[in-house]
């Protein structure tokens, strides 16, 4: 009987509803958590695996020696390499294509590389506006590497002690 009365009083006073409304009202004045994307960004780990790049040595020589370990290890078969002997007798790539649609961004190419040439950078907001642009060539990869070298180097240095 008392239980019925209690239930009756509770539902007619709209108690639960008012409690719910007090929650939403509290949140109305609470600080907002939205990140305003292009202006603000969330922090990224130095291990972030985004767009690829090919690095160079400090003297400007490209690191890649066309050993094709990355091509062999790539689980998605995204990498295509052709190589040739250069005039100075060293082996270099003539073609280094990565299909960004095939790539699964696993980072195994970076793990396999004996000379730290191919790396995955922090860049995650890239796009292409023409069919076929998803295959990025050796020249584009080297340009990316030149552009972001400081960031790439500092990321590698920061992560070095865990490797």
């Amino acid at each position, binding site marked *: 009987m008392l239980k019925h009365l209690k239930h009756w009083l509770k539902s007619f006073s*709209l108690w639960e*509803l008012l409690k*719910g*409304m007090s*929650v*939403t*009202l509290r*949140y*109305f004045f*609470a*600080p*907002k*958590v*939205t990140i*305003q994307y292009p202006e603000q960004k969330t922090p990224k780990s130095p291990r972030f695996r985004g767009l690829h790049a090919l690095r160079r040595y400090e003297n400007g020589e490209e690191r890649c020696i066309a050993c094709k370990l990355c091509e062999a290890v790539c689980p998605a078969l995204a990498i295509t390499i052709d190589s040739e002997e250069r005039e100075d007798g060293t082996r270099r790539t003539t073609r280094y294509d990565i299909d960004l649609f095939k790539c699964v961004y696993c980072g195994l190419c970076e793990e396999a590389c004996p000379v730290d040439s191919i790396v995955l950078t922090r860049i995650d907001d890239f796009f292409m506006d023409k069919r076929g642009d998803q295959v990025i060539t050796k020249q584009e990869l080297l340009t990316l590497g030149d552009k972001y070298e400081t960031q790439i180097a500092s990321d590698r240095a920061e992560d070095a002690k865990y490797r």
Partner: protein
Amino acid sequence: MHEMILTTLWTVVKILCVVLPLFGAVAYLTFAERKIIAYMQARLGPNRVGPKGWLQPIADVMKMFFKEVIIPTNANRYLFLLAPIFALAPALAAWAVIPFSATMVIANINAGVLYVLTITSLGVYGIIIAGWASNSKYAFLGALRSSAQIISYEIAMGFALVGVLMAAGSLNLNQIITAQQGGIIHWYWLPLFPLFIVHWISAVAETNRSPFDLAEGESEIVAGFHVEYAGISFGLFFLAEYANMILMAFLAAIFYLGGWLSPFQGIPVLEEFFAFVPGIVWLFIKAGFFIFLYLWFRATFPRYRYDQLMRLGWKVFIPVTIVWLVVLAVAIKLDLGPWFA
């Protein structure tokens, strides 16, 4: 003859003075809704179009205008296009009797409450016709749900209004307001408190707003009666829904919160201090409170199940209102002060 043309023109001007600001209010109500609900969900809401997002509703309206109006195959063309007009016309017509101040009213008619009740119940035809003319099962189910719901809650709402009529002794909206003269405790929300709550919840159900928005239950019937509408024909339904929301907020303010009366009436210093504020401002503040409640409910409550909705309307609200009508009759008979003295 000359005089007749002049009065007609004057009436048209008065109508425009109400309808055009109403359209603006609807546009910015959609913005307020998105902002307030976003804030209650710890988000920011639209803030990209124009300074702080203030041009967002303009962008939305432009988009609606330029989108194609699609008429489904096998739909009844004429009724399909007439339905949004049927929905919108009553939502606008009801504003004719709303008193914005003691003198600012388009038509000060004696049967104001009856007029409002009849006109707002016509709004359900727009929904039924839209659902039927669309030749879509979702639209049809939505229309059935919506009409059953509106008819059920109209009864509870009507009974709640009977209490207001008994207390005020008049059907004229301005006389209902003046009968509440004397300060906050004289307004009818206090002596008619249960009716006030029932009236307001029924008003939310009448306008098909959350948590009573089963007519557009996304998960089961896609968008209910307006699935097949696109572009400006959908925009008219939208306009009607929001115009009805604002109307219900104004009606609740008039019936229970003393309309354009100042809340400081009877308080010695504050009454003189706020005497310069015109009545229309108080009315807008009170209606604004109810509009905020609409949005607050939408941010808080999950949608009702259909049988629960019907149970609430028929087995809770109608008995409650009838019981309170008896209590009210006794109170009036005994001249219970300060309201019925």
